[in-house]
């Protein structure tokens, strides 16, 4: 489903060139459950950003569902993000002035989907995540766990084939954290590819495949025996 070949990502900090990613090649198959771990500065977030088309590799190629992605224009990449990729962030990134339902609705609005179709889809997504009675609440009226669930509803509303989660439990207590992980794993069971970036080794262990990074390269890539 995804093939990264010889990806380099170089940032220029002042005079110095910093290698965030050094010759990373990776193949991910559809429906997989992958954790990416490593100390901070190891390049795991950069890898996630490149996978999520928020960032472009300096060199190397990225194939997504057999399509060459690297050469697409910014606008076309935005379309791929919109239709194929869902993001879940550590800090939720909900728009504070919009209600939960409106936040979830956002990708549908951007895609220009008819309001009559939008409403039931939003209601369904919130229903699945147990947020039916929170639809009209604004983010500041929700708990952390609820906010992350709204964010997951937003990430899944476009029925993406890939979900990228960057420290999804980093800002949550243990209980709501495990709730969120359960939700994400259930989504993975429906066939969505799930990639979680985390510090938490316990969380990393749960994935079928775990990648450990240091200094911009892949240190280990282990697959659980079924």
């Amino acid at each position, binding site marked *: 489903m995804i093939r990264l070949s010889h990806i380099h990502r170089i940032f220029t900090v002042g005079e110095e060139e910093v290698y965030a990613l050094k010759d990373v090649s990776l193949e991910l198959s559809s429906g997989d459950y992958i954790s990416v771990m490593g100390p901070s500065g190891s390049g795991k977030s950069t890898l996630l950003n490149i996978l999520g088309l928020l960032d472009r590799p300096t060199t190397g190629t990225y194939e997504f569902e057999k399509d060459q992605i690297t050469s697409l224009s*910014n606008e076309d990449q*935005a379309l791929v993000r*919109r*239709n194929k990729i869902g993001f879940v962030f550590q*800090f939720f*990134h909900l728009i504070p002035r919009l209600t939960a339902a409106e936040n979830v609705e*956002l990708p549908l*609005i951007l895609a220009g989907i008819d309001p009559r179709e939008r409403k039931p889809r939003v209601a369904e997504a919130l229903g699945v995540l147990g947020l039916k009675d929170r639809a009209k609440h604004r983010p500041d009226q929700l708990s952390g766990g609820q906010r992350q669930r709204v964010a997951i509803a937003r990430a899944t509303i476009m029925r993406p084939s890939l979900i990228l989660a960057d420290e999804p439990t980093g800002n949550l207590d243990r209980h709501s954290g495990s709730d969120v992980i359960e939700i994400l794993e259930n989504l993975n069971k429906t066939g969505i590819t799930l990639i979680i970036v985390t510090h938490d080794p316990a969380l990393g262990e749960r994935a079928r495949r775990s990648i450990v990074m240091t200094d911009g390269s892949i240190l280990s890539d282990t697959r659980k025996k079924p």
Partner: protein
Amino acid sequence: MKAGNTFLFSMRALSGYPARTLLVLLAMAIGVASVMLLTSLGEGARRYINREFTSLGTHILFVLPGRSETTGGPPPLLGQTPRDLTLEDALALTRNPSIAKVGPIVVGSAPVSWNGKDREVTILGTTSNMFEIRQLAMGQGRFLPVQDPSVGTGVAVIGHKIKTEIFGNGSALGEWIRIQDRRFRVIGILSPKGQSIGLDMSDLVIIPVASAQSLFNTSALFRIMIEAKHRDDIQAAKDAVLKIIRERHDGEDDITVITQDAILSTFDRILTALTLTVAGIAAISLAVAGILIMNVMLISVSQRKSEIGLLKAVGATGSQVLRVFLTEAAILSMTGAVLGLVLAYSGLGVILRLFPDFPVHIPVWSVIASILTAQITGILFGVLPARRAAALDPVQALSRR
């Protein structure tokens, strides 16, 4: 993203920060309102002058002694004064077919007294023709009688203000007043309405021209007012006046004839220029409002960085982000313009209440121009912040909370 949705999203963004939005709206509204109010004042002044002139009668010419136009020749020798305009000059003009009425004018100031009350008053010496030429109206009694202009009689017509100041509520008709050392009988009182440029018709005493000449001991006329037969005759009348006076003054062009049209069009030009200048100054406040919109939008972009990053993460294209922010700028400037319109018209209401006589009026062109300028500045100054938002790197935008 459909236009309606962009609009709704932008509206939510604006209503999410009410204080900031209101401030920008206020600035825009004040800009638009000041353009409209200032032009309406200029336009009002123009109309006021116009109205005053037409109240004088529409085809009037003024004859002044001396030439006011420069000829480019050497300056006149010291002590050389223009020949006086005399009553005979004025009477000679009446025979021309393009001239309907001739009103010679002598003006001076003299003490007027009655029953021990004394007041310095402007004395206007003229003939019965002045009544029609200046389109006067009588309050009581009658105007100067039709008679030989060269005969001075002791009758006077007084202005309304003079009447109340000297006679109070009592009757003035038939009373004898003393002007300097001569006695005049009051035969008429002007109606209070007559007020025209240069001369407050309610604050003077009108006596026969010959009486005024002997009162001030002069044979010279201050000027001659002429009414042409018809509007089309104004030029002919002007030529005739110049020709007749030249013949009478030994072939010298020593008078100036001013047509009312010329005065009017001069005033019109001056006031139009004034209105445009004032409008231009007011337009600066519109530009300031535009810059304010830009500042507010720039602040908004940097405050909403993570929101913009998120929009991009969930699949907003750069142009969609651009459109959202441009729409916000457009909504701000449009709403500000509409508020300004309301402000301007209520300001106009206040002015009309305070000065009911002053014909203020907001010209249509200024409404259109100020709203268009508001829109253009708003969007123009909105482009920079919107582009900045569209070009924002999502990774950086999302990295901070």
